[in-house]
């Protein structure tokens, strides 16, 4: 019996595919954001609002990740310039999108005609944080009814976020959500991340988010 030193990251394969996705997107001058949140936080509503405010001057494709249904893709179909649905039920990983799935989806999108790809990840605060997809920015949505303790319970996804959306801000009077406590927990490991307090129902706060997003798109 002898020993072999290995010391190789098991996520290397996924990271390599993510880098290749990024190169593909760069070649087409296309940006990508990865939208992550718990189920019910309002990912699809947020994407619909975002599409409404970006188009038609910015051309947007959407990659919809979901375990089984096409419900979200149908909602987005008429609101985006192109949509690809990924049902993870038939994939090795059903709880998160991985770089291979995004690679397959990118091949189905007319990247030359698009400026931005919005990737809606599977509803989950744990698994998506492990898998880079080749995105330019990671966006995490937390909704106020979920409670302000989520950054303490799921620190990784909030640590890696490039922007955090606090959705359902109109429900603050009715739920126990201390906005400052939430932000302070996130800032422990992510001190400079911008927060956007929005309501996808009323549209409150979306303008600031869109302003930030447009700024990120400059130079792409």
């Amino acid at each position, binding site marked *: 019996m002898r020993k072999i030193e290995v*010391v190789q990251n098991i996520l290397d394969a996924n990271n390599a595919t993510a880098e290749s996705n990024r190169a593909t997107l760069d070649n087409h001058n296309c940006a990508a954001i990865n939208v992550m949140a718990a189920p019910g936080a309002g990912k699809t509503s947020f994407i619909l609002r975002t599409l409404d405010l970006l188009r038609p001057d910015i051309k947007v494709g959407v990659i919809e990740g979901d375990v089984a249904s096409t419900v979200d893709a149908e909602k987005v179909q008429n609101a985006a310039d192109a949509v690809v649905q990924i049902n993870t039920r038939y994939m090795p990983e059903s709880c998160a999108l991985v770089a291979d799935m995004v690679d397959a989806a990118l091949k189905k999108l007319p990247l030359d005609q698009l400026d931005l790809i919005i990737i809606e990840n599977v509803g989950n605060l744990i698994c998506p944080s492990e898998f880079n997809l080749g995105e330019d920015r990671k966006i995490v949505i937390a909704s106020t009814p979920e409670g302000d303790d989520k950054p303490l319970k799921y620190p990784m996804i909030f640590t890696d976020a490039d922007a955090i959306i606090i959705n359902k801000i109109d429900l603050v009077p009715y739920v126990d959500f201390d906005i400052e406590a939430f932000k302070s927990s996130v*800032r422990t490991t992510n001190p400079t991340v911008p927060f956007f307090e929005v309501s996808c129902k009323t549209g409150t706060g979306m303008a600031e988010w869109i302003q930030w997003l447009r700024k990120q798109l400059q130079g792409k």
Partner: protein
Amino acid sequence: MHEYGITESLLNIVEQKAAEAGVERVAVIRIVVGVLTGFAPDSIEFYFGSMSQNTVAEGATLEFEELQVQLRCRACSTVFTPRARDWTCPDCGSSEVDIEGGRELYIKEMEVS
């Protein structure tokens, strides 16, 4: 639920390293996993059992070394392992930290014959 693909990647690495070293059998695989990752060793073992059949790693034992959270204070650079969810620096009380450890997921070494 995301351990299937991870186990596949793990097995790919093991098979590649075994082939490079001209190994007939892999007996033990030592894996380092940080507690902040969402990866469950039990699930990796479960998938590994069936996936490794008819490979050089069939019947290999997986040994997991779990790494605790390690934080570095941004204010005073103290490195510490936090107690539960209180991530404030024990030395200066700052609550801004960088995660130094706890997100690892790698194959450290293999015992082969």
